[in-house]
Each structure stands twice: as C-alpha cells, then as structure tokens.
C-alpha cells in the first residue's frame, strides 16, 4: 500500500501551524497520530498535497490540572489518558473510553484531538468528553476560540472546525465531589472493534437530599454524530437515583437516538441496547459517587 506523494511540514508552534493552514487551505491535512489519516491516504479517500505534522507542538502534548479545569493538549496520546494519574483520579469515564479505543498499538499513536476531529459516530472518546461537558479550543491566525464539544460535531467526519483552524486543546471543568461518571461500549469483539453502540453518563448529586443535581448522558453510534441524550437527562434531573429511575432513563434514551442499520448492526438492536447501556453507565456513575 503506497502513500501518494505530498509535502511535509513540521511546525514548531501553533502560530506557525495556523499560518500553514491559512496559506494552503483545504489541500493541507494536519497529522497527529495518523491512525486515521494514514489509512485514509493509503485507501485514497483523502489526498492532501501537504501534510502538517503536529509532532513538534510541545504545548499540545500536556495534561494540565488547573484550579477549576483540566486542560488536555490535543496531541495527548490515548495511551497517556490511561496512564495519567490526573485523568484516572478525576475523569475515570474518559480513562474508560481510552481503554476501549483500538488496541495498545493504536493507543500509542492515536491522540485525543484526532479521535475528536475524525468525528466518527462510534468514536470512543466523545461520549465521555460530552458528559464531562468538554470544550474544545480551536486556533486560527485570529487566535483561539472555544466551542462546546456538543456543538462541535456536524455529521460523520464533519465538524465546525474551519479549514484554517487547528484543535489544540480540550478543556473540562473538574468534576465536583458527589459526582461520578462511567463509559461503556458494545462491539462484536472484545477489543479492537468499531462499536455497535457506546455511551457515557455523568451524575452529580445534591449533597443535602441526594437528588440528581446535574446529569449528562451521551451516546455514540446511534446518530450521525455522538449525541447528548436529552430525554434521558430530563428523566433523571432532580430525581433520586434508583434502579427504576435508571431503567426509565434508559427507555427514554431510545427516543433520543436515530440509529441506522448498516453492516455492523441493525437499528432495532442499537435502539434496544441504548436502554441497557444507559442504565449500566448510570449505575457505574452512581457507584463511583458512593465510593
């Protein structure tokens, strides 16, 4: 499998990268881990005349724990999301999503930014990021802008990212005490799979009465983009967590999704599994709070 010919740039700063993006427009493709781009270039699906390696962008490689937020550089390896103590301690659902992504070999190349920008409906990281209320930082020559991740995806492979922009970081508010989150995925194989469905949930309980103060539920592979399950969220908001409630939320989530039948799975099955998955991730989230 040969790669087509292209020019190669390795900018040393975000500014330099943005300048290249502006100059060459649609003909340039940013290269982070390459686990998507290289495959698509070999298949001839994309044919950039210039590849922009993000390898030297040091500021995009860090995970920073700030006062109220956690900032994850877009080029952070998925493997690093698993190994990093800050992620393990504060964003366990993201760690679970990272563990479910690809294989160890892929996780050693793939980046969090790449997983977001490729905008696959079944991607493993977006559901967890969505339930943590993640924001993405998009840079252009005009400077950075911040977009809520839930507003980022437009369709399969499509996002609000402009041709002259680069996703440089992901920002998340540090979850408060009394909160928990979980991620689950369902595939054919146990690993290295493209999920038939995946999902995450985040719960924050009111410390006084134990009711659900804040809730987010997100699902993947049941719509053209990773989605928030707003009907499920409504069913949960302000309620006291219980098995019955989680079952109801799972049922409500079926109305949130619009799955398709493709060669990987049927719409009816996906819909049915939405309930199971939502109930189970809620249980995981609750268990974490109780821990």
């Amino acid at each position, binding site marked *: 499998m*040969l790669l087509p010919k292209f020019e190669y740039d390795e900018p040393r700063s975000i500014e330099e990268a943005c300048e290249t993006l502006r100059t060459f427009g649609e003909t340039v493709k940013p290269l982070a881990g390459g686990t998507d781009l290289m495959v698509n270039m070999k298949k001839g699906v994309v044919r950039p005349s210039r590849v922009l390696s993000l390898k030297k962008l040091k500021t995009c490689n860090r995970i920073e724990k700030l006062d109220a937020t956690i900032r994850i550089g877009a080029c952070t390896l998925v493997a690093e999301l698993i190994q990093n103590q800050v992620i393990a301690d504060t964003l366990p659902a993201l760690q679970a999503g990272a563990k479910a992504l690809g294989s160890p070999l892929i996780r050693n190349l793939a980046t969090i930014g790449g997983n977001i920008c490729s905008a696959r409906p079944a991607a493993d990281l977006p559901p967890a990021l969505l339930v943590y209320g993640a924001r993405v930082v998009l840079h252009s020559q005009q400077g950075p802008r911040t977009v809520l991740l839930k507003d980022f995806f437009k369709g399969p492979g499509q996002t609000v990212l402009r041709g002259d922009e680069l996703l440089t970081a992901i920002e998340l508010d540090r979850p408060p005490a009394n909160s928990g989150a979980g991620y689950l995925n369902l595939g*054919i*194989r*146990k690993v290295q*799979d493209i999920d*038939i469905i995946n999902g995450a949930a985040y719960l924050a309980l009111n410390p006084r009465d134990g009711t659900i103060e804040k809730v987010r539920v997100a699902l993947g592979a049941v719509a053209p983009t990773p989605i928030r399950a707003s009907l499920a969220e409504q069913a949960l908001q302000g309620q006291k967590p219980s098995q019955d409630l989680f079952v109801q939320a799972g049922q409500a989530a079926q109305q949130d999704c619009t799955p398709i039948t493709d*060669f990987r799975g*049927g719409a009816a*099955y996906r819909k049915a*599994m939405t309930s199971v998955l939502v109930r189970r991730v809620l249980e995981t989230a609750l268990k974490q709070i109780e821990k």
Partner: protein
Amino acid sequence: MSEYDVINSRLSRLDTPDKATGRALFIDDISFSNMLYGAILQSPLPHAGIINIDTSAAEKLPGVKAVITAKDVGTVKYGVSPARYDETLFCQDKVRYVGDEIAAVAAVDQATAQEAVSLIKVDYEELPAVLSVEEALAEGAPQLHAEYPGNYTAQVHQEFGDVKAGFEICDLIKSSTFVNKRQDAAFIEPPGCVAVFDLHGALTLYSSTQVPHYVQRTVAMVTGLPVGKVRVLKPYVGGGFGIKASANANELAACFLSMKTGRPVKMNLSREQVFKLCRARHQFLHKMTTGVKKDGTLVSLEHECYLDGGAYSSFGIATVYYAGSLLGGPYKLQNMKYDGYRVYNNKPPCGAQRGHGGVAARAAWEQQLDMIAEELGMDPFDLRLKNMMQAGDVTCNDLNMSSLGMEECLQTVQDGSEWKKKKGRLPKGKGIGMACGFFVSGAGYPIYRSDTYHCTAIVKLAEDGGLAQVYTASAEIGQGSDTAFGMIAAEALGVPLSDVRVMSGDTDMGVDLGAYSSRQTLMTGHAVKEAAEDVKHQVLEVLSKELSVPVQDMSIKKGRVVFHRQEPDFSELRTRYIKEHRGWTDNPKDEPLTFREASRIAYLARGSIVGTGKYKPHELGGKYKGAAVGTSPAYGCSAQVVEVEVDLETGQIRIEKMTDAHDCGLAINKTSVEGQMEGSLSMGLGEAMFEEVKFDARGRVINADLAEYKIPTAVDMPPIETIVVESNEPNGPFGAKEVGEGAIMPTIPAILNAVYDAVGVRIFELPLTPERIYTAVQDYHERQKAS
C-alpha cells in the same frame, strides 16, 4: 518414558529461532537485482462483457516494461480439478466477479505499476449479476458459464443404505437447517511471489504457497513450458489454511511478465486483494433430518446442502463432496443420503479452508444430535458414546477408521472439563456444550487423476557423516512439518535431531503434493522414514562387509553403532577415520563406534550415500462416484467441551474455557500437536462468533480489511486446555496421523451447544453476534408469550 529417542517428545522446532529473531525469510523479504514490480487490473463490476481493452496509455507510461492481457497469454483453462478447469488467467470476453483479472503490468517500481494499471481502459457492457444461491438458481437467471448450465458447478447425489426404510423404524426424527457465513482465511501474511525467467529458458517461481507441486504443474500447463523447466520454491510461509493450496492468477501473471521482460518480477497482494482473490471457506446451507431409536441408536441421515460458490470452481467439487462424506463417521450410521449442490454466482470464488467442506456440516449435525439427546433425555456424551465406532470399523460410505481414539477423547474432555458437575447445574446465562469431529489424514487421491507417488524424499549423508540432509518438496507453512520430518529422519536413522538438516518446499527436491488435507505427517513422513532407513541400511551394509557382522545384528541409536551380539574389533575403521581427519581435535577415542565414523567409511566405499523414499496410499475403499473425496489412509478425531457466559441483556457471549482432546495417532512432536489444536480452536471460534465476509449490492466486499473482518484477538480467546490422545495408526509412520484440521470440527457445534445451554434458544445461523443472540432470545420470548 517413550520408547523413542527423538520423536514423541517436545523438541524445539528447527525454524523458530530464525522466526523469533527476524532472520526467517518470507516472500516479501526476497528481492533480486534488476527486479520489476507487477500489478493486476481487476474488474470493478460483478458481471460484464468486455468490449475493448486499451492498454496504450499504460504502455506509454515511463518505467512500464510490460502490459499483458488475454491476447498475450492465451486462454488456457486452469483451475484446481481438471474436471472443472473453468478459469483463464485473464478474462477475454467477460468478467464474472468484482476482482476478476483482466490485465497485468510490470514496471520499475510499485507506484509506476499501479499507475499503469489505472491507465488501462476497459469498455464493459454490464450484465445482470446473481449474488446468492437463490438468485443463481432462479428461473431465467443469468448464466455464468455456458459449459455448466443452471449455474451448477457440481451436484452430488449419494445414498448409502436405505434412508427411507431407516426412518420407518425410528422413534424420533429431527430436522433442522443451518447456515454459516463465508469465512476468510485471514492468514497474517498476504500471498506474494517473485518469478525469475532465466537465460536458459527456465522459470523459477518463489511463492508463498502451500503446494509447490500443484503450482509447478499449473504454471507449466498455462505457460506451455515443460514441467522440468518450471521450478517452484516456497520460502517461509505466513500461514495458508487451504487458501494457498492452488496456483493463483498472481503467480501466473508474474511468470508471464518475467518471461516477457526477461527480468525478475515481484507481485504482492494487498490485504484488500486477499479478500477478493483468495478462495476461502464457502457459505453452506445445510438441511438435515436424522432418525434415531429411543435408546439413541442413530439410524438414518438425510442431508441436503447448497454451497455459495462464487464465480469459479476452485476446490468446489471436492468441497461439495466433503460436505456430505465427512458425516459418515465417527458414529455408526447405516443409512445416509446426501444431495449437494455447488452453485456459481458473481462473487469471488470460494475454495478450501481448514476442515475442508466439513466444518459447517459437522456444526449442523452435532447441534442436531444435541437436540436429539435432549429430546430423548440422554446426556450428549452418552448419545455419542452409544453410537461411537471402534477402530477398524468402516463407515457406510467406505471410510476405514483404522485407528480411532474417539472414546478416549470423549472420556478425557468429560473429565477434564468436569462436565458431570456442570451440565444442567449452571446458573442462567452460563452454559456448557460438547461435540465431536474427525478429518482425513491426507486425501487418498491427488487433485488431478494420476498414479503418481504423493511424495518422495531423499536423505543424503554429508561426506563426513556428521550430518544427514533431508530433502522433500513438502511445504512448511507454519505447522511444523520440517521439524516433524527432521525428527522422523533422526529417529529412523538413529541420530540426534541436531545432526539432521531439513530442506523442503522446492520442486527440485522431488514430488510432494504439499500441505493440504492434513496429509504431510502421514504421507511425507512415510517417505522420509523410508529414505532414512534406506540410508541406514546402506551404511550398515558397508559396516557388515568391513566388520563381518550381519546387518541384522547391528543398528544405530543416538548416533552410535549398536552391536546386538558381541562387539567386533572396529579399531581399524577408527584408525582409517582418524587418518581422514588429521588435524581434527574431536576425533573419537575410546567411545563405541560412532555413526559419523561408520558413514565416513560407507562414503569411502560407495561415494555419496543417498537414500530415497516414496509414498502413496494403498488401495482405499469406495468404488462409488465421489469416493475419492473423503477416503484416506487414516482419520484423526477430536472431542471438545466449551463453556460460555452470555450477557442475556446484550447477547454478548464470553467463551470462558475450551477443552479439546485429539487423537493424532502417535504424536511426533507433542508441542506442535497442541499448537495445531489451539490454532484450530481459534479459527473455529472466529467462524462461530465473529467472522463474515460481507458484500454490498454490487458484489463488492464491504469489510475487506482486518478491522471490519474480525478474527479473534488474544483477549477474545479463552484459556485452552489441550489433551493429546495417542492411538497407534497402522497406516501412519511410527503410528502417526493428522491433527491440523480434525480439531476444528467440534469447535463450532460445541459453542452452539454451550450457548443453547446458557440461553435456552437454538441458533441456526453464524456468526453468533450479540445482535443475533439478542434477537433470537427476544423472538423466542415473543413466541412464548403468544402461545
């Protein structure tokens, strides 16, 4: 303790140090100076007439050295079985599947070759395509081959005994229908080759093949070169599983391109091409009806099978016969009727894969036997034991079970899995299942009708006697055959394995039909044993003369000459040996006479000491049409227990444990035997659980990569317990027989039966995806509610 010095042990394989260090050369690791790269143009349409092929733009591209089409190479028909040579290297007037070969290019590098292929302009006239058995057999369906009307590659109609009369005395008659899915071999090494046409008019083809001999014959036939001018060599091969067991278009195209350019030509297949060009397992639709008496005695089996064949025959005739014949055993069954249909359609052709033709049939039947056992209130083990054949029994279709350790296999897996403690006592969602199976130990007949020896072997002593060189044309494809033959030669000769060097995979070394139908250990093993014994005899003959000791009073063991009676004075021989090796520091002193000394003396007396061996099966049973498929000198057999856990909410299955016992006759190398069992189970698990080559409505493979076509990963495989059961196979060398394919037979039905035990619903379609399990369970509950 084993009575043997070398075999029946766990010696490390000869090839693995090279493979563990990256030294071992596979096809893509081989290059020649001035080598060109080839690429093939494949049809984008499933069925179309070819109006015109314009290669002029491709020819003009700088760096292109040759462009060939049917006009250049002719339209000699080839295939696997001479009874159905239905392919030409390149399509001349029509293409029959997406991937059908139209032209090939040789250029100075890969990029140029691929670009040139894209410049070849073909005008097609699209024809209606048939993409399934049903479509192909429908009234007025488009026909693929004018010579084979009705889109039938082959039909089989057999009856042994009287099935109808049998049913009349039955207490229970059970019918079911079962379908598997097209499986890809998914060997990790995509096939490739390098053809080198030399200045003497001889062609050497290096290829990633299981069958150098058949490739040699096909290349000779299609190119018109004499067989003697075609040499086929295989380097190390990254797995074959049946799919590399016939000549392919890639190999033939490389040969023609090298002949045209006079330069070496390398041609590799991409992973995507593997899914199109490589002929893997068929989809089988089985309809079976079995009749039994209430004590569990099997009486009659009526069986109908449809094979979704694809555009050409490949192995298809053999496959459709195997799908019926391999149900003749291992149970005593007097009456068996089989109607098999192998059907053409506009998808890539299917061929042979591990457990050729028998895997889905076995799955369907062993599942049905489980249903029968349940209905009769019998334990599945008891039903099988009740009907089990004994060594020496002959099936109704004339398969002679010359050795059969099936009962012992059943006993050991029953104990090893703690079946009795678990069966019927597991919580909901957990299940345990079992099944049996067997497979040929080498096809009784070559693929082309011939009286040829199936293999020849040469054992040659180095002139100092320190090394025995074993030459065969057999194919080491990862199964460990080189090591097995080294061990057999060492045992037969009486020397340690370290004193044997094994060369194989080269048609210049002899005739060997190759690595398919689990034949090499038994067949090539015989030839190697005979050649080694020949060498030993020659050495002992010279010694006999020199020492005046009768040959029968001497033998060789562990590299020493053993005198059965009084030890003669051999000091004169030793002096002569030492004289021949002046300056050597390791000359023998006080030890007994060594094989090395004896063979040096033999060399001095006779020149090269070369022993030869050969093998073909004795007259095998079966005079009916199709008896050649299924008859074998021996049969290996397996029993298996699988334990599963099913997530009843999602349908996800976790295989918790697999226990397999296999009777391989005498195990030449026990570690290798276990390796074959473990690999078989893994391939069976993949077919049962995940694997399916999928097509779109235009006949294109949707999942032509190893991401979307899912074979088991290390996490999907449970711990496997393998138990090697040894019988003494009278027709095998040292009592050895097959293990490479028999062990896959029980895997799928054992999983099916375990899943049933866990969920209470029978599934009659593979693979057992979560969705299929979930839906089946839901449907069952709906039906329950309704009734």
